[in-house]
């Protein structure tokens, strides 16, 4: 059993046109920078991307948008991206916006073998259009289906050769959920250690969910909103 890949290009080599892929991260935090760069280099097209956000101009999924590799985005929030807006308004890009908790839970449902979940998010709004509604204990819920993605691409802080993953701070976000949800899950990590080095009580994503892992290079970790206070 060898899950360790040499680099991003090798790990994503079989992602082809029209694939449905999940990409972890919230904003630019905890995104799989190396895999995104490799997908841009490979030039794979007509992708359906499930990711909470669509990056910014010149970074994250924004890089794939610039190369017109994305056919459809499934996200909860897509602000801060002029190229995205241009493609959306011109009809080049299809967008499905869904509530953030629904997005997260539809990933989890896939990883937990649950075909559908119920959430009140979107009741009474256009998000509910065409969806099954159901009342439990007097409250209305929408039935939302588990995602079905070909690949999940996630970024962790540390990982081991068995595919176990540990995330850092809020870079966790959607990563463990998507890691569970992909038919093939590819993880890039800042630090790759031999199996046995991570504390089994501290592992966020058990290796059973991870098919490929590699150590990423040169993480830029761009900050979207640098907010600070001054030392007094």
């Amino acid at each position, binding site marked *: 059993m060898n899950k360790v890949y040499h680099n991003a290009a090798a790990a994503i080599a079989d992602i082809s046109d029209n694939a449905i892929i999940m990409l972890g991260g919230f904003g630019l935090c905890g995104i799989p920078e190396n895999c995104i760069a490799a997908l841009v280099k490979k030039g794979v097209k007509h992708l359906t991307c499930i990711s909470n956000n669509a990056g910014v101009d010149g970074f994250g999924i924004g890089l794939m948008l610039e190369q017109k590799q994305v056919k459809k985005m499934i996200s909860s929030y897509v602000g801060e991206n002029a190229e995205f807006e241009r493609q959306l308004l011109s009809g080049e890009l299809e967008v499905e916006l869904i509530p953030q908790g629904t997005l997260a839970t539809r990933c989890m449902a896939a990883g937990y073998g649950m075909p559908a979940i119920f959430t009140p998010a979107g009741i009474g*709004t256009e998000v509910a259009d065409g969806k099954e509604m159901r009342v439990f204990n007097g409250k209305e819920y929408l039935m939302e289906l588990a995602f079905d993605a070909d690949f999940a691409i996630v970024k962790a802080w540390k990982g081991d050769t068995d595919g176990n993953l540990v995330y850092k701070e809020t870079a966790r976000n959607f990563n463990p959920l998507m890691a569970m949800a992909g038919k093939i899950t590819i993880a890039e990590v800042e630090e790759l250690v031999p199996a046995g080095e991570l504390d089994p009580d501290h592992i966020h994503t058990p290796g059973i969910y991870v098919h490929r892992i590699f150590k990423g290079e040169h993480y830029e970790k761009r900050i979207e909103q640098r907010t600070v206070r*001054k030392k007094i």
Partner: protein
Amino acid sequence: MALDKNQIAQRIAKELKDGYYVNLGIGIPTLVANYIPAGIDVVLQSENGLLGMGPFPFEGEEDADLINAGKQTITTVPGSSFFDSAMSFGMIRAGKVDLTVLGAMEVNENGDIANWKIPGKMVKGMGGAMDLVASAKNIIVAMMHTNPKGESKLLPACTLPLTGTRCVKKIVTELAVLDITDKGFKLLERAPGVSVEEIISKTAGKLIVEGDVPEMEF
């Protein structure tokens, strides 16, 4: 005189109770954190996966892996915890968050809220707003009483696509504090020096005014 944004936040902060878990939206709601009353212990939830959000980091100490739901660099306080987005919205959906404060483009007299989309203009997406308004036990809206054109944002019926229905409990604007009741907006307090008449004139939805309406205290 009408309140400024910081005063709106300060007035909302008076609603906090010891032990509350609170989710603060982007904009004015974020400012509420600056006015937490002394002796009151409140834990801030950030829906990207953090309980125990602290203030912005000192210059040079920003950590790209540590941001809030507004994508701003932040810090944590002792007792904080990180979790994934499914658990984060799980605790929101399960009603574990005691208070949610968010902004709005429109609120109607039933408590419906619109704050995510303006048709024909750019659609940025609802982010976590629909989850929050569908689940939170207690929602306070922080917003201006009127839009830039001077039109009331407190309406008989929202004109913009809804974010959620019958969910807002209280509204704090630069002019007034109002509850949403079965019978419409109920005026509770007015900003210092602001007349009841001005609030009436700027409220398009049904407004209940009973007896003397006190000025806000801070």
